[in-house]
């Protein structure tokens, strides 16, 4: 079974797909350590593939210190309001939740929310909206060059509140941005 799972994962990877290794590991059950070793060995020893233009664009924006999510949004010709409209509609958010949604989305683009805190449905919606992968939404976080590691650790471990005064938190919005589920 591990051989079949590895075979399928490796062939898909070689074709340029990006199969989630965790789905394969889950299917391997107790032998997931063995499968993880095979996948890792493959990744280490196979020649790398050529990156697609979008990944190059995102990586270059990120290396310059820009927000990758903003770069993706601009690339798609979307304003921030257009993204908020789409999210409001998809998740049937009350119009009263708009200020909280705007604030949270701003925080996400600015790197003030850890992508691991995002709900899966929000990650999927953003990937769809920005026409990218969920991997990209979760890994391309803005760099915080000016922030010390101690602050980062502390910020990541504490629940966030909307930073603008006068904006009330909204439970539906926070469920999307902070639940991690």
């Amino acid at each position, binding site marked *: 079974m591990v*051989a079949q799972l*590895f*075979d399928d994962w*490796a*062939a*898909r*990877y*070689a*074709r*340029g797909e*990006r199969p*989630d*290794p*965790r789905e394969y*590991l889950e299917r391997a059950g107790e032998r997931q350590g*063995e499968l*993880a*070793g*095979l*996948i*890792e*060995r*493959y*990744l*280490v*020893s*196979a*020649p*790398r*593939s*050529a*990156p697609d233009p979008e*990944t*190059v664009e*995102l*990586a*270059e*924006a*990120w*290396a*310059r210190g820009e927000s990758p999510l903003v770069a993706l949004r601009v690339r798609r010709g979307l304003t921030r309001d257009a993204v908020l409209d789409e999210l409001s509609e998809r998740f049937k958010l009350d119009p009263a939740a708009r200020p909280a949604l705007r604030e949270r989305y701003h925080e996400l683009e600015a790197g003030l929310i*850890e*992508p*691991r805190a995002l709900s899966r449905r929000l990650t999927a919606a953003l990937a769809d909206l920005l026409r990218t992968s969920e*991997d990209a939404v*979760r*890994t391309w*976080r803005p*760099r915080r060059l000016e922030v010390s*590691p101690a602050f*980062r*650790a502390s910020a990541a471990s504490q629940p966030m509140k909307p930073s603008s005064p006068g904006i009330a938190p909204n439970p539906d919005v926070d469920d999307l941005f902070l639940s*991690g589920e």
Partner: protein
Amino acid sequence: MTAERMRDARDAEDALLLEAGAHGRLIAAYYDVVVQRSLARVPGPSGWDVAHAAIERLLSELQRGRRYTVPYRVVVHNIVSWTIKEHFQGLPVDVPLPESWDPAAPEEGYGSVELAELFEQLPPAQRDACVLRYLEGLDVPEIAARLGKEPNAIHQALFNGHKKLKELVGGG
């Protein structure tokens, strides 16, 4: 192009990008590898954190402007291995690697054995099947047609290739 030539071509391309200071492009080139390795080794949402930390470290290493005595891919895999190891040791990974760290040092043999070299140990027909499957991603019927063999023979060749890979992991 053979796998070995493909690897050499990538190494040469990496060297040019390093020379040109094209950090974003180098990061992009290894992004998938970093993410997939991190997710394969680190369960749960922490896999994303480790991937991001490794990417941050790749960039900070590039910005140090070091010259490497090994291909850049070896440096990448060493940084990923180191970051995964530190994560499991409970150490903070969202900090640059220490200046004293040698990015060219062999790390658990990673980067020292290539997939193509591994398959070299197989008879030619089996080797070709493994290369087409694991480096080009062809389906078994496509490989059979390309090599003029029966699908069963291809399945057997892939089974042997998998065994070789497993031996390497077991001994690695």
